[in-house]
Structures are given as C-alpha cells and as structure tokens.
C-alpha cells in the first residue's frame, strides 16, 4: 500500500537545514583546502585527560552512571564553577552532566517553553538556538546585533522585542560566531531589563575559558541573576574535548529538577568514560587550558591584524576562536564571497548569514589552526582580494 499521509512532523518539516551543511559538502569534496571553517580546537585533548579515560576503561567502569552524572564529577563541576565563576550550585540537585552543551541547550528549552512561548535569540548566533526553540514548541525571536557595536547586545534591543509571551533570552558570551564578550557592566544592564520583564536567561558559556583581554564574568554571578539563569557550559572548547560529548547545566533546584526529568527519559546519562575523563580535566587541566588559551590569543592577534591589513576590516574579538571580518567592501554577499574563496583559493570560511540575518556581510574564520595554515590562508585571501 502506498504511503499517503505526511509522516514527518510539521515542526521538523519547517526546519531549515543548517547552512553550514552546504559548505561542508562543498569543501569536503575538494583537496588541499585550508579550513578556517571549523568550530573546534585544533588541539588534541590533553594527554592526562585521555589517560584518565583509558584507566577508567581498564578498571571496567563501563556501566550507566546516575542520571545527573557521577557524583564525583558533579562535585568537581560545582567546585570549578565556584572557583572560576564565583557562583555556588549544590552538586546534589543543581548540576546535571549532559551530552555536550548541545543537549544542555535542548533540555533547558524543553523544560521551560510552552507552546508559542517566545524565546529571544541574539544574532549572529550559534546555529542551533533558533531550531531548538522551535523544536521545543516555542517561537524564536531574533535580535540583530551590529558590527557598529562589535556585535554586543544593546540592552534596549530587548525592550524592542519583548512581549507578554517572552519567556527567556539566550545569551552566548564569548559568542560564536562573532567572538564578542559581554563584560560585567554590560551584563548588569542586561540583567536590569531581564528583571524588569521577569525573563529567564539561558547563558551559554561554553567559551568562557577562552576570554583573552578581560576578566570573565559569568551571568549568574550578577546580582539576583542566579535564580533566573540556566547556566550552560562544557568541556568541548576550553578543554579541547569536542568528540567526548560532555557538557553540563547548573541551575536553581526547581529548574534542574525539571530538566533532569527530560534528561533521564531521553539520555539516561552522559557517556561514562567521558565523565571520568572530565574529572581529570577539572582537577588537573588548568595548566593545559592556560597554554591553549595563550596560543589562541597569539594567533588571534596575528590573524585579526593581518585581516585588517589585507583590507577585510575586523573588530578584535574578545573571546572564543573566531574572527568575524566584514566583506562588505567587496560588494559580494557572504555566500558568494565564501564560495568563490573556496573554489578559487581553497580557503574554507563560513558565510555569516548562516548565523542569522545580521551576519550577512561578514564571514566567520576560525583561527584554531596552525600558524602556518593561518599565514597561508592570509596569503591566499590577499591574492583573492587583489584579483577582485
């Protein structure tokens, strides 16, 4: 019998595939590409962390852990968040170990969104935010930040889009793709408006360890914000552990309890070996993180100054490992620019529009690549620009 119904759910049917996908397919089919298109560290996970995982396997720790994660790891996370970000969470019922920050985002949104609730997404943003809001049944409401403000959210922009249906605001500092970091003062201004409109905040701090010029401020550390914040962090970026799929949520008890229900029914728990590795990362990884951070900072300085020299104007990003230069001077769209650069000079970058409308006119370049690769990429981009 023929299938006659529409089997795929309306929500999923309406979702657009990620714009990153198209570029991946194009770049992956070519040889000799220098990739600045990668959203992950070029370092391999520190050896002691890999070692700890091997040891856990040798000892046979291969079963499920508690839903919220290994008790020992939750305690380490609680200590780490207190030590690094000055916020206290009870490891017993305020911390959940997740399958990457990705799952943490999903669980957070599903725990708070009712059908047609609005969630504000600050663009340019990580590609998952808006789709995850939709999948949770909510309506993503974009805010467009601008290059004029180094892509920092201006608090009054929240006022312009807030409605009685607005439930939450997702912020990401340091930001993917712009590298923008919100400092304590800017976060305080945002907090003021959040409080005024009684909003929740999902604070994605996955790049917190990679903040180069200023002291990092975590959103829940701002006065009275802990109680209305779901803090998301993880091991992927700072500890160079993307493939381990390990992240965490820290949130007040009632939120954490709600999120744990979803987590327990959908994931059971995060991978056990990754959890053992993460304990080592938190206990002894600080020096490795510091070394990697130093190297990113040097490469950022080199890369951003070089971009400006070859005529792609670029603000100095305060964190993460992305430069987000403007390509408006070329008259091309970001898609055209990225495609021609790839085909003609074999340098892969990501067109800014895939991160939301305000990313148009920009490209995302990851400088988590060897210095030699960055030098070569700059040479090729310069040649490309001179030819236009």
């Amino acid at each position, binding site marked *: 019998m023929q299938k006659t119904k529409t089997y795929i759910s309306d929500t999923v049917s309406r979702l657009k595939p990620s714009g990153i996908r198209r570029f*991946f397919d194009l*770049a992956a089919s070519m040889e000799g590409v220098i990739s600045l298109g*990668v959203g992950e560290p070029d370092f391999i996970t520190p050896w002691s962390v890999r070692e700890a995982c091997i040891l856990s396997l040798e000892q046979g720790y291969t079963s499920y852990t508690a839903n919220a994660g290994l008790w020992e790891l939750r305690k380490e996370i609680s200590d780490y968040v207190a030590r690094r970000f000055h916020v206290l969470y009870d490891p017993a019922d305020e911390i959940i170990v997740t399958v990457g920050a990705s799952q943490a985002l999903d669980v957070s949104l599903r725990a708070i969104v009712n059908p047609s609730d609005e969630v504000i997404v600050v663009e340019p943003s990580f590609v998952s935010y808006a789709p995850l809001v939709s999948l949770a049944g909510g309506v993503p409401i974009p805010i467009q930040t601008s290059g004029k403000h180094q892509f920092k959210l201006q608090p009054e922009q929240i006022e312009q889009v807030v409605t009685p249906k607005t439930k939450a605001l997702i912020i990401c500092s340091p930001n993917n793709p712009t590298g923008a970091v919100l400092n304590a003062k800017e976060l305080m201004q945002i907090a003021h408006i959040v409080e005024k409109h009684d909003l929740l905040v999902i604070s994605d701090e996955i790049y917190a360890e990679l903040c180069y010029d200023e002291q990092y401020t975590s959103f829940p550390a701002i006065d009275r914000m802990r109680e209305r914040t779901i803090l998301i962090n993880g091991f992927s970026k700072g500890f160079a552990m993307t493939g381990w799929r390990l992240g965490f949520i820290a949130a007040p008890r009632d939120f954490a309890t709600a999120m744990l229900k979803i987590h327990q029914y959908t994931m059971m728990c995060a991978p056990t070996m990754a959890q053992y590795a993460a304990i080592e990362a938190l206990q002894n990884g600080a020096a490795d993180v510091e070394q990697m951070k130093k190297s990113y900072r*040097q490469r950022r*300085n080199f890369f951003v100054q070089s971009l400006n020299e070859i005529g792609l104007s670029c603000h100095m990003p305060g964190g993460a490992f992305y430069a987000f230069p403007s390509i408006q001077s070329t008259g091309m769209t970001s898609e055209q620019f990225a495609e021609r650069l790839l085909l003609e000079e074999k340098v892969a970058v990501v067109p800014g529009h895939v991160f939301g409308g305000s990313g148009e006119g920009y490209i995302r370049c990851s400088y988590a690549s060897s210095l030699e690769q960055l030098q070569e990429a700059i040479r090729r981009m310069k040649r490309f620009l001179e030819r236009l």
Partner: protein
Amino acid sequence: MKLTEKEIEIVELLEKNARLPIDTMAKMVSLSVSEVEDIIKKLEEAKVIVQYATIVDWRKVDGHEGVTAMIDVKVTPKRGVGFDEVAERIYRFPEVKSVYLMSGAYDLSVVIEGRSMSEIAHFVSEKLSTLDSVISTTTHFILKKYKHDGTVFEQGDQDRRIVVAP
C-alpha cells in the same frame, strides 16, 4: 634577569620556531616590529637566548645516519675544582655534544655523536677513559630518536577535523 610577560612570550615563540618572521611575531604579541627587534637583541646580548638551533633528523639524509651515544662517566673530583676541571677537559672535545653533572650512580653524563660505532668506541677508549680522573665509563648507544629537546620526530600532525563544523 627579570623578563616582562611579553619578553617571555617572545622567548617561548622563538624556542618553538627560531625562524618565525619578526613581523608575524610582532602581531602575535601586539608589539611593533622594532620593539620586538630590540627585545631580541637585548636577550641575545644578555645570553638569555644562547643560540638558535636546528633539530635535524639525520637518518633521513643518505650517508649521514651517524651514531649517538650517552656515556655514564665516573670520575674522581679534584680538590679545589671539584668536577669542573674534568668536565671542561671532556667538553672541549668537538665530538662531545653535551656534558651534564649528575646525581646518582655516576657523575658525568656525556653525549657523543660520531659517524660510526667504531668511531665512538675509539673516542671512549683512547680519549675519555685515559683521562686522569676518569674511573669508569659505560656507553649506551641510542637506537632510535623519538623525541629530542621537546620535538617529536615523525609526528602524525595531520588535522583530523572535518572541514566545516558549527
């Protein structure tokens, strides 16, 4: 000598790659080219930077394979000059690549490079063992170099990441 943070950063960069272009380095540490030049000159003059070395994997060059040996040397220290005099007599030989005073079972660790095992054997028996203060030598030949001065030979440094990712 007390170095600033930027000076230390420059030393570290040069230690990893002595051929890093000055203008690249200047950008990396956010200084001007002439500031970096001045710092390097100062560090060279103060002998903080002692030499710019090149690490070569000679096994790859036909006819240049060579042999390296580490020799444990027991010596009788001399009154007044301790181990320094005999160490100096040893390190003056051009075949000798390094000499360290050690704690433990022997006194000096001597690294020798030669064209062949017999050349090294000859050096040890004719030159080293015959020195007055030398009591005994134990020669260890290096069979394969995996890592030298922080540099891994034959490193698989290909990028395993996919080309474009979120």
